[in-house]
């Protein structure tokens, strides 16, 4: 039981993620989380503004069900399957984050400096979350997939487009982390 309650190592988690993808393929579907954003836009009536959202969203109900499950899974894990162990981050990461103004890195899943209610009451932090969301939502649809669709599924299918997208993910992520974080957070 201790092994379940403690954080899972990569060699357990990675294969389980592959298993999730393969299970969805076996069910005749595919593993892609960002498609749900398009589906939700369609449900909200975005089809009136762009043809991109005119499709039979009911055919995607299975994927929305996966999302619902994922939310429940998140709840189950923090409620029943965690022993509150700290994250085993690289000490260098912790120091780097301190320099950027993030204290206690790894004590919670997400930094309270960005995601606590107090944090979002400041205009700057609210703007950071809004811009981050816009970039993710816009970029993932432009690229035709996110981490699950391209990095896991696409690469597993040896798709060159997915490799290009993943290289793009890393260019963007590296620029943000190395060049923009010092400007944003210092």
């Amino acid at each position: 039981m201790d092994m379940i309650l403690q954080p899972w190592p990569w060699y357990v988690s990675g294969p389980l993620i592959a298993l999730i993808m393969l299970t969805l393929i076996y069910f005749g579907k595919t593993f892609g989380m960002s498609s749900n954003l398009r589906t939700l836009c369609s449900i909200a009536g975005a089809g009136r503004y762009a043809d991109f959202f005119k499709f039979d969203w009911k055919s995607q109900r299975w994927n929305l069900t996966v999302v619902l499950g994922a939310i429940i899974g998140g709840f189950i894990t923090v409620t029943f399957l965690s022993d509150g162990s700290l994250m085993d981050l690289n000490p260098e990461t912790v120091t780097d984050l301190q320099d950027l103004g993030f204290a206690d890195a790894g004590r919670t899943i997400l930094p309270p400096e960005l995601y606590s209610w107090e944090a979002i009451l400041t205009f700057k932090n609210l703007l950071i979350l809004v811009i981050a969301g816009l970039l993710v939502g816009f970029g993932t649809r432009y690229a035709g997939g996110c981490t699950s669709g391209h990095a896991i599924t696409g690469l597993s299918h040896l798709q060159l487009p997915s490799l290009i997208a993943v290289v793009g993910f890393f260019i963007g992520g590296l620029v943000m982390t190395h060049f923009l974080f010092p400007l944003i957070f210092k």
Partner: protein
Amino acid sequence: MRFIKFLLVGIVFGIVLVKSEAVSWYRIFEMFKFQSFHMYGIIFSAVLLGILFIRIFKRYRVKAANGHEIHFQDKDRSFYRYLFGGIIFGLGWALAGACPGPMYILLGTGVFTMLIVIVSALMGTFLYGVLKDRLPH
């Protein structure tokens, strides 16, 4: 009832991503700083097993649960959309510390401020849908 299996897949997905800490903003930062193998190990082992099993599926013509052939669809050939879209996504991924899967999962862990990111991501997707025809693909 036929949706139960997808609900279960989602629940397992949520549990695995929280237990692996892949939903953590800190882990994403650490990954982009190349200061830990953890995230790379997760991605590489998932992809390696994925490649292996998809080869096996194809080789032995494994049928889907409903008896149909499994259809492996190739992604559209293109360059700019994957590179530009990928870079934009990457910027957001590092800043939010979450990609679309973890966004939903984190909501379940009780981080309700994540709704701001989710609603913004919906706006971003909407914006793409409106501007789609004017972008290089």
